[in-house]
């Protein structure tokens, strides 16, 4: 399939990127890994007249802990997160998510920044980032702003990113002691979107939940926080009974619609089960890890 014609620009500075975006604010698109955008362009569901590639902009491949947060640069590839021992050790939920995005070849190009900025409710990182309470850094000539991931995700294929803004970094709070995270995805086959998936972050105080974050993938117009389930868990001991109740509430928080991946009831049932599995995995990690 042949995309529509476009002009390709590959500036070497962020200022150059903004200049290019500002010249054609309604008709340009930022290109990172391209693994979502290029398929859309091939189907001609997207036909930007200008494609502004970030690949020559230095400094966008940061992956480090700094000032109490994990900083993920806009051009960090999924495969880099998969291989990072820092991510495996300290942010296992992000590692889980990066390892199930599409397939290994796509992950060699796909970026976490693109996964968020694309705004697709079926993408894997938004829900995990909701659970982790991540913040997104957007920069433009007008300045730099930090958005809570919940405010960044607006609607289906829509984010709070303005046409002249570039997502430059993602900040994930460093885990408190006795914290664990997990992302559990249910897909028909490798490379497919989730039928449903659940990302969880837990901070424990002995056997008691001190903080809980739960994000849901592909069961709503955008990635959703399971707020009732989160609120219920705080102060609870994790038992079979409380896990079941958290799963039940997460299924209530979900807003699935029927499609080729299944009817509403099935997806709610999946959210219930996956929430319980993700909570168990996160709790095990919280107990196993000495931070």
């Amino acid at each position: 399939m042949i995309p529509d014609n476009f002009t390709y620009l590959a500036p070497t500075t962020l200022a150059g990127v903004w200049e290019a975006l500002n010249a054609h604010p309604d008709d340009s698109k930022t290109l990172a890994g391209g693994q979502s955008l290029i398929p859309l362009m091939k189907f001609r569901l997207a036909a930007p007249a200008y494609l502004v590639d970030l690949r020559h902009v230095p400094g966008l491949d940061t992956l480090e802990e700094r000032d109490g947060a994990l900083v993920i640069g806009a051009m960090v590839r999924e495969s880099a997160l998969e291989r990072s021992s820092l991510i495996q050790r300290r942010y296992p939920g992000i590692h889980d998510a990066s390892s199930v995005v599409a397939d290994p070849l796509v992950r060699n190009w796909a970026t976490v920044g693109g996964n968020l900025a694309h705004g697709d409710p079926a993408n894997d990182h938004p829900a995990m980032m909701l659970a982790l309470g991540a913040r997104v850094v957007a920069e433009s000539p007008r300045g730099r702003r930090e958005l809570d991931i919940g405010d960044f995700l607006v609607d289906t294929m829509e984010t709070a990113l303005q046409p002249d803004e570039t997502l430059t970094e993602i900040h994930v709070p460093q885990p408190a002691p006795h914290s664990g995270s997990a992302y559990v995805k249910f897909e028909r086959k490798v490379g497919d979107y989730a039928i449903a998936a659940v990302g969880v972050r837990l901070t424990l105080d002995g056997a008691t939940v001190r903080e809980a974050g739960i994000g849901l993938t592909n069961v709503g117009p955008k990635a959703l926080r399971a707020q009732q389930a989160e609120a219920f868990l705080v102060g609870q001991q994790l038992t079979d009974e409380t896990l079941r109740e958290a799963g039940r509430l997460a299924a209530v928080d979900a807003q699935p619609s029927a499609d080729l991946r299944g009817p509403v009831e099935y997806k709610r049932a999946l959210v219930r089960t996956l929430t319980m599995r993700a909570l168990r995995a996160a709790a095990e990690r919280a107990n196993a890890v000495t931070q």
Partner: protein
Amino acid sequence: MTQHVKLTLNGQPVEADIEPRLLLVHFIREVANLTGTHIGCDTTSCGACTVQINGVPSKSCTLFAVQVDGADIRTVEGLEQDGQLSPIQEGFFEEHGLQCGFCTPGMMMTAEAFLRDHPDPSEAEIRQAISGNLCRCTGYVNIVKSIQHAALRMREGQAAPQEAPVTAEAPR
């Protein structure tokens, strides 16, 4: 509007004026005339178009050629050296790793790059590594064996890089 692109393809410099919308797989097949790289699904699913870009296996149907300006690209045609099959090609030959052969170029480019980082992989690791390359003939059993065969040959090659094999028959 065309754009000038210059890259290295299997060690040879290739340059051309192309439309930015030209996909890398079309550049390889129609500009450089190397048709070993296949177009399968054309939707980022099957991996028949897999090539190595600076050593990294990538789906060339989901990249514009302008994105890899300056890169070092290796296709299936670059595997054989001086008339000698590479270990991965030998593996597919010896272990009957193909039937129709359509997925084979992509499968080999993925597997070869994988083996460079994982010289002694488990079967599970191999299956995970090729999960972005679809084969509709073999059921993957012989593909896994082929990659295991290649892994063994590559480890032997590492151990004694200068020595020619003593026996005429390849080890099983």
